[in-house]
């Protein structure tokens, strides 16, 4: 059940094993003893390619179920929710920004944001104002331009606006700068952070790019977080021996 929590995200003993589908896809194992993110906090999670960063975000968003452990978002164990209830919860609590932005092709900038609101419990009367003000605050003026007609930088801003449309507790950004050149990458991170701050949303960015570390007060390395788990286990084994 959902309970008031000071944490936007609280992960406890998360274990996920991906079996892989053959020699070229050997699979991997993700074990995270704990990870918390306070409401409104920003954090950068660095990890090499293929270590499971994106999978972690999917676990947090409830798109993939863990083998064990819990993920609480805004005090709610997201994996305790099933089916449509989990989808609805994700829609109004978690915003996601992707490396390739994943805007809906054929939809305008405005419509991309409105789709997110359509899935939310925000009253319909507020949708247009909310979408317009978000897009304008992010510097998008061509609201009717189709996603594919926008520049990469503009697409990224639309993706940020869409992620924040439902006033989420937590925004998950998956390699948000991987498609951008260094200059635009810095701008993109700034836009993302500013927007999340303005909306009061916690921000978890996963990336393989160490250059982003300078922009975040709190940064973690996924492999170190997982080593802590291994060390913790061996300490417990030694104590019991």
């Amino acid at each position, binding site marked *: 059940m959902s309970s008031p929590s000071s944490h936007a995200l609280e992960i406890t003993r998360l274990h996920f094993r991906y079996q892989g589908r053959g020699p070229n896809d050997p699979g991997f194992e993700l074990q995270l003893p704990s990870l918390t993110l306070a409401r409104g906090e920003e954090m950068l999670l660095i*990890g090499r*390619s*293929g*270590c*499971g*960063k*994106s*999978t*972690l975000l*999917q676990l947090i*968003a409830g*798109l*993939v179920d863990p083998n064990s452990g819990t993920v609480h978002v805004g005090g709610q164990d997201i994996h305790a929710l099933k*089916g*449509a209830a989990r*989808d*609805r919860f*994700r*829609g*109004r609590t978690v915003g*996601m920004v*992707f*490396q*390739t932005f*994943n*805007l*809906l*092709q*054929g*939809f305008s900038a405005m*419509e991309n944001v*409105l*789709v*997110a*609101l*359509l*899935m*939310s419990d925000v009253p319909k009367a507020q*949708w247009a104002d909310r979408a317009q003000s978000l897009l304008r605050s992010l510097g998008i003026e061509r609201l009717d331009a189709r996603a594919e007609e926008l520049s990469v930088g503009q697409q990224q801003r639309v993706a940020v606006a*869409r992620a924040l449309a*439902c006033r989420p507790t937590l925004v998950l950004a*998956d*390699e948000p700068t991987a498609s951008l050149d260094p200059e635009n990458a810095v701008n993109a991170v700034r836009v993302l952070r500013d927007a999340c701050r303005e909306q009061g949303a916690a921000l978890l960015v*996963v990336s393989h790019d160490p250059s982003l570390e300078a922009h975040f007060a709190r940064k973690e390395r996924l492999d170190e977080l997982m080593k802590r788990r291994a060390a913790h286990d061996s300490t417990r084994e030694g104590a019991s021996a």
Partner: protein
Amino acid sequence: MSDLTIVLRSLRARLFSTTVVVLLVAVSAGLLLAILSLRSAGERAFERGTGNAHLLVSRDGSPLVSVLNGLFYANSPKAPIDRAKLTELRESFPWAMFVPTAIGDSYRSFPVVATAPEFFSKFEPVLGEPWQFADGRAFDKNFEVVLGSAVARETGLRMGAKLVLTHGSGKSREGAGAGAGDEADEHSHVHKEYEFTVVGILKPTGSPHDRALFSDLESSWMLHAHDRFERLGQEKLVTAADLVDDDRKVTGVLLRLPSREGSNTPPALVSQYDKLRRDGSITVAIPSNEVQRLFSIVKSIDVLFLAMAGATLLSSGVAILLSMVNSMSERRRQVAILRVLGASQARIFWLVLTESTIVGLVGATVGIAVCATVLFAATAWLLNAHGIVIAPELDARSAVLVAMGTTLLAAIAGIVPSVLAYRTSVARNLRPIG
């Protein structure tokens, strides 16, 4: 923004394939509807041709042949009714209409109907629609002829034109001085001696009568009496005074019984029909019944056409299915994005199902609209160019049934892609993943 907007945007994103499938559905639905409309139109057109005659008496082999020959001019009746039988028939009942006809002569392959003046005053070529003259009047003396609208149009004959008729179904020549090369066939001969004058041209009726010429019985009898004299070796121009009872034969009688005002089902019809049927020397037919019998005979062909149209419609359903399944690779990412944004699997299922249903609905609507337009244009063209009143009406009930059937079929075709969308893995389709 609504779920419908998402569906419409998705269709717009694949505009070409959407348009092709919609057109395919439209053609299928339109074809099915056109067949349904033409089927009833054909039946109506045949029923029109029976006119207001309750009964048709002839000496043809069967009632159906009698109607086909006597009212639709399919062939010349072979066996005539003699004067004595005609008198007996006339006096057997107080008929509201008693119109004898003699069919056997022709003009340029158009049948010539020799008949009584009542043919124009009492017989209606289409029930409730009396004859109307585009020009002139009915014949009122010998060797006058009235042209059906199609005859006038196709032969170019005008008021006052002279023509000679052919005894039999061969071609005849226009006027006595026509070219010698235009001879009648071996089974027929031209009565050059008897020139007819066009005194009237009828307006189109949308019935087989449009393709016939009409003259008085006495002139026809004189033509045939001429043959009788020829066989006896006497060359003479026959007059009415030369006619004997044996010349005064007819091939059919159109009968109408007295009925109440506004009613076309006289109480005595069945009894008179049964009474006449007991007379083995004649064949009696209720024309409307024979037309229905004819349509019941050709029903199996009708079913075949319907089955073909149904198969076309089914193939358009398969096209919807294939089109949507083929688009799944591009659709999967959209589905994954919508799921991330909070759309449930059930909602995704309904979105895709709505998409296929809309394709069916739009296709059916376009098909019905195109069918209505084509039928309207074809009706006008047939009437103007050929004087044929097919009048296929777009039956509202058929249109609704076709629209509903097409939409339902499209919805069924959408189930498979909907299930595929429902089962789309969000994680796998939000590449690149770590």
